[in-house]
Structure formats: C-alpha cells, structure tokens
C-alpha cells in the first residue's frame, strides 16, 4: 500500500471518530461545554483502540490557532474575538484552575524554543558561500557562551581578522557591506537572500563603489569602528541578527555609520531594525531604504545624531 493510500484511510477513520464525538478535531476550537466552569475541565471518556491511534497535528503557531479564543464559556464570544485581535499579547487564553490551558502553555514553550535554537546556532556556511562571503572572527574565542558574556570582545576584530580584512578587501569604497551573526543566525538566513542583492544593485545604479563584503562570526554592532579604521570606507552597512523575541527569531537589523572610527558610539550610527517578512520591515524594501540612507550620509558627510542635525 502506498503512503497516500494509508493517509486517506487514516483521514477517513479520523473523520468518523470526530463525527462520532470520540475525538475532537484539532483544527476547530472545542465547543463550549455549559457544564464546565471557567477554570475547570473534565476529559470526555474515550473508547479508542491504540492500533488506530493517529496523532497528526496542525502547526499551533499559525494565526488561526494562535489567536483562537480559549476561554471556556466567555460572556461575549464576539467581544472576546475583538479583544484578541486588538493586541499581539496572549489574552483570551482561559485557564485550568489558576494555571494555563495545555495548548497555550505548549505554544509559549514552542515560541521560546525557536528563539533558543536561533541563538545557539551558527549561520549556514552554504549561504555564506552563495554570496562569496569569507569569514573572520572577533576576539571571542570561547564560542557562544563567551559571546553572550563578553560584549566588549565581540566589538573588536582579532588580529588575524584584521590582517585578512586588510588583505582581501578593497579599501576606500563608497559602501562597505558586512554581515554578522549577532544574536540570531536564523535572522541572517531568513533575510540575506532578499536584502543583499538589493543593496548591491542599488549601489551600482547609484554609482557607488561596493567594497568587498565579508562575514563576521560572534559579531556585535561596535565592530563597525574597527572596519572603518582598517578599510576607510565612506559608509559601512552591518547586517546583523537581532536578539530573538518570543517566537520571532528572524528579525535582522542594518546598522550604518559614516566613516566609523575607534571611539564612536551608538549616537554616531543609524539603524533600520525589525527587518523580516510578514509584519516587519520587508527585507527588499529595507535594502532600498539602506541605500538611500547611505547616499544621505555621503551627501551630509555624517551619520547618527549629526546626520539628524545636518539634514534638518
């Protein structure tokens, strides 16, 4: 028997069981049971043979399930739906006694899990190869743990990196793009394919020379200063993974500075943040925006607070 045949049999059995009330459909919220108080639940008796047991769940992170009302017997179901749609906060979640219902508890844990995995993972080498990015390191030598503990070391290129960058990169470019892992490898993987070509093409059509791009492992934003000191470009654009939010690991930032140098701070920089598809700044648009900012920086010969004042 082939797999699709098996699947269709399973599906038919599940449909029968749902129709018979033996199990609940996973894709529709359960009907309110008027006998149940808000904080209580009594599982229905089931007569299900283990041989026919099939657990094949939909993704609980899709909006239809994530934002499904979960309060047992709400006074005003339409009102509850409207309230839930007014915020991304986890409301209308109901309760089991004073605690969470099982589905909301596990959804929360799933959202936290994706951020943890993004944080501890390295950017896929294949992606870096695709864009011809060579890799250098900051002064972090002790892996992700040291990276999290020592932001000061993540802001400095190590000696080998300084030599490699000086050897391999064109100096004095109008725009120097650098990619850094930051706090989320997933953010780079999710956005680089869209944003990178837009920046490159945008620079070409604006007549800006495009330096030799490369990748920095264990990277913090402050590394902009070292790049400026070594390569003397007009504008440095650092594409870097942001600190993951709960359930959101694909958010990237583009930090930018005009002629950065040792001692510069955040006040000397500009940033386009929350770059991600579906809800954030779209990476294609972000790429075009970044090129515009680079042009403005060159025009006013400034970035950060100084650019704000100069462009007034």
């Amino acid at each position, binding site marked *: 028997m082939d797999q699709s045949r098996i699947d269709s049999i399973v599906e038919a059995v599940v449909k029968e069981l749902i129709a018979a009330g033996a199990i609940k459909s996973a894709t529709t919220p359960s009907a309110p049971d008027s006998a149940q108080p808000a904080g209580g639940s009594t599982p229905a008796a089931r007569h299900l043979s283990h041989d026919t047991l099939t657990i094949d769940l939909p993704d609980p992170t899709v909006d239809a399930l994530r934002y499904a009302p979960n309060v047992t017997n709400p006074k005003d*179901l339409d009102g509850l739906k409207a*309230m839930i749609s007014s915020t991304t906060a986890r409301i209308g979640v109901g309760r089991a006694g004073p605690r969470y219902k099982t589905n909301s508890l596990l959804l929360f844990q799933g959202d936290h899990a994706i951020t943890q995995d993004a944080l501890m993972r390295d950017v896929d080498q294949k992606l870096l190869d695709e864009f011809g990015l060579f890799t250098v390191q900051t002064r972090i030598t002790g892996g992700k743990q040291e990276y999290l503990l020592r932001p000061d070391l993540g802001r400095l290129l190590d000696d080998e990196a300084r030599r490699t960058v000086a050897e391999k990169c064109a100096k004095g470019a109008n725009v120097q793009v650098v990619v850094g892992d930051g706090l989320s490898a997933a953010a780079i993987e999710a956005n680089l394919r869209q944003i990178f070509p837009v920046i490159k093409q945008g620079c070409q059509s604006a007549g800006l020379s495009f330096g030799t791009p490369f990748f920095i492992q264990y990277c913090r934003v402050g590394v902009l200063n070292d790049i400026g000191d070594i390569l003397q470009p007009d504008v440095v654009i650092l594409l870097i993974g942001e600190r993951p939010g709960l359930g959101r690991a694909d958010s990237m930032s583009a930090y930018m500075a005009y002629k950065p140098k040792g001692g510069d701070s955040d006040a000397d920089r500009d940033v386009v943040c929350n770059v991600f598809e579906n809800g954030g700044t779209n990476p294609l648009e972000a790429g075009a925006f970044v090129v515009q900012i680079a042009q403005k920086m060159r025009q006013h010969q400034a970035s950060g607070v100084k650019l704000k004042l100069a462009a007034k």
Partner: protein
Amino acid sequence: MLLRTKLHGKTYEFPDIRLLMGKANEEKSGDRLAGVGAETAAERVAAKLVLAELPLSVLRETPAVPYDEDEVTRVIQDAVNETVYNEIKDWTVGEFREWLLADTTSSEMIKRVSAGLTSEMIAGVTKIMSNLDLIYAAKKIPRTAHCNNTIGTPGTLSSRNQPNHPTDSPEGIRAEIYEGLSYGSGDSVIGINPVDDSYGSVMRLLEMSYDIIKTWEVPTQNCVLAHVTTQMKCLQAGAPIGLIFQSLAGSQKANDSFGISVEMIDEAYALAKKYCFPAGPNYMYFETGQGSALSAEAHNGWDQLTLEARIYGFAKRYSPYQVNTVVGFIGPEYLYDARQIQRAGLEDHFMGKLTGIPMGCDACYTNHARADQNAIENLAVMLTAAGCNYFMGVPMGDDSMLSYQCTSYHDAPTLRQLFGLRPAPEFEKWMENLGLMKNGVLTDKAGDPTFFLRR
C-alpha cells in the same frame, strides 16, 4: 588595613574594601565583566570569611563613591540615624547576619536598626547570606504602604497589571487590562510602559487607564512609565495620575545617564504629593536592577550588588508606594543564567526590605539569557515565601512590547492560592463584590476579560 585569610592552607589577601566586596559576591557575569569578581570559588569564600569579620563602621566609612563626589552617597549618609548607628557600628558583618536571623530579633527591632544603616552595610551582609537566609530574613521585615489601597500587608500578595502593547493601542491595552483584572491582577498598580514617551501619548494612556478605574471603581492607582519629566508635565496639566514612576540608579553618574538627579526626583515627589489623585501618602514607584551602573560605566569600580543597594537608599528618601528590581532584564552579560537571576532577585528583595522600602520584583529574563519560564516561576515561589509585596502581571508572562518574559496574570492567583495569600484588602473586597473571587479563590466568572465589556 590588612584584609587576609587562609583557606585550606592557602593565603588570600585583598587590597581594599572595594575588591573584597566584589569578590565576596556569589558568581555574577557582571562582576566578571567589571573585573571585580572572584577568580576562583575558594577566593570567593575567602573574601566572605574576611568580610564577615569586618566592622560595620568600615563599610559606613567606605562608600562606593566618595561623599564629596556623589549625591546618591550624600542622600544615603545624611539619612542615617546616628544614635542607632552608634549602637551597631562595632558589630561585624557576620554578627549582623546572625542578629538578623536570631529568633530573639523581632520585626520591630530590625526596622529600628534599618534607620542606622547605609547601603554598603546592607550590601555587605547580603553577600554572606545564603538564598534561604535571604528568604527567611526578608520575611521578617514586612514593609507596607498606602496610596489608593494598601500594599505589603503580611498575608497578601499584589500584582501589577502590566498591559503593554507594541503600538500603544488604547483598545489593545484596555483588552489586556480587562484580562488582568479578571485574574485579580492590578492591585499594586495598572502600570503601562509606553512605546511613545511623548506628552500626548502619555496623557492618552493616563486618561484611558483612569477611565477604567473610575468606571469600575477599582481600588488601585494608574501609572504610565514614561520619563519622570513627561509625567510631571502631565500632572501639571491636570492628568489623573496615581503613581509617579522613574528608573533609578546607584550613582550620580549613572543617574545622569538616565537624565535624572536628586533635585529632579525631589521636585517630582513634591508635585506628586500635591496633585496625584489617590489618598496617599505614598505616591512614588521606582524600578531598579543590578548592572545598570556598570552598563553606563558609572559604577566607580564597584560590584553590581553594592550599587543596587545604593538605589534602595536613594529610593527610601521618597517613601515610595512600591519599588521593584527588574531582575533579569539587563541580559546575560550581567546575570548569565537562571541561577544568577534567582540569586539576584532574592538579594534585591531582601536589601530593599532591610533598607525600608515596600519591595516587589519583576522576576524576568530576556531571550539571550540561559533561563526560561520555569526559572522565573521558581523565583516567584521563592520570593512569595520571602514575603515579596508584588510581581508583574503580563499576559502569559510574554511582554509584547518590551520583548522579555516575566510573571503572568495567572501567576498571581496561583501563588495566592498556593500560599493562602490574598490580594490587597480593598482590592479583594472589590473582587468579591463583583463575584470574581470568593474566600481567596477565583470563581467561575474569573479569567474571562469580556466580564468587563458590559460597562
């Protein structure tokens, strides 16, 4: 000054009080970052051994930042009751610890001695206490306050309703407030962190939250946690404000980086007493957190626990209604993992109570710390045992604006029902009258935010 001990045959010597205090701390990544942490586990204990023999007077005379250079130091030193201080100045730090824990030492005795302490003395004793010591001693020091209702009475546990929203949408925030109220969260304050710190935005949120308080006659107070200068402007323009908020730091230089000074907070306090709508007399709300001075490079070479203790000494000047450490917010370079966050939470709560302020805790973590929700639930249980005044209530602990996780709307009733505690008395009566709570337990109507849609 010679500060030296042997431990397991090896000699450890400490050059000064500053390094002795740093090395005597339980392990914290921020102390490592500052270069004041112990190099080895044995060196840490050696520092504790020496610190335990130090007379309290030495700590009084060695403030983290000199008196002439720092207004926070002056606030703390000038507030000392010299008569009380003279009675205890010769106690060693170790003797002080045992006195705090002794069965013969009452709550009233501790409260009297608090008046003779400086923050460095409080930090010193905290360093040589175990976690259970911190829980046990803090429980002996209830600190109550009153604004529209009463916080911190033994037998109660309060919850700040923290209905933050990624774009400050009044409808979204209102929905979150209703969700929280339906679980009994909001007796400490309905406190909103705004995205937009501007006058117009803050005004709008103050009026919206006040409208809910009036409509439902909620015995609580509202607060929008913008910069204090914005709140002062709103207050002068006639905005309905329950509590005035500000984040504080433990040195003048760090407060500079927050854009505040003693003079500014004095002025805010005077305005609050004059214009806030509740009965009072406590109108101020402060937040703190270990590592804030270091991150502003304003720690003067001292450890983060001592700087934190100094914030409480500063806060005490304003008889606050509530103060909480935001203990895991700052990130893993200061508090690396669950163990360090939990330790700091217990330290901060104890130090606040010993200083004399009504202390709660934002038990929280960021996504790049090695911690999870279980770690925060553990900390909340420990702090409830310690008599903590209040926790944050956030929808499922996931703050959709600040992108960190803390305690939830569900956690307040869980901890109350677990420990046999009640909300603030006025608030409990209100919940009972509405039929949301009976005998300290949520009723069937509770947990449904649409309960509040009918008015």
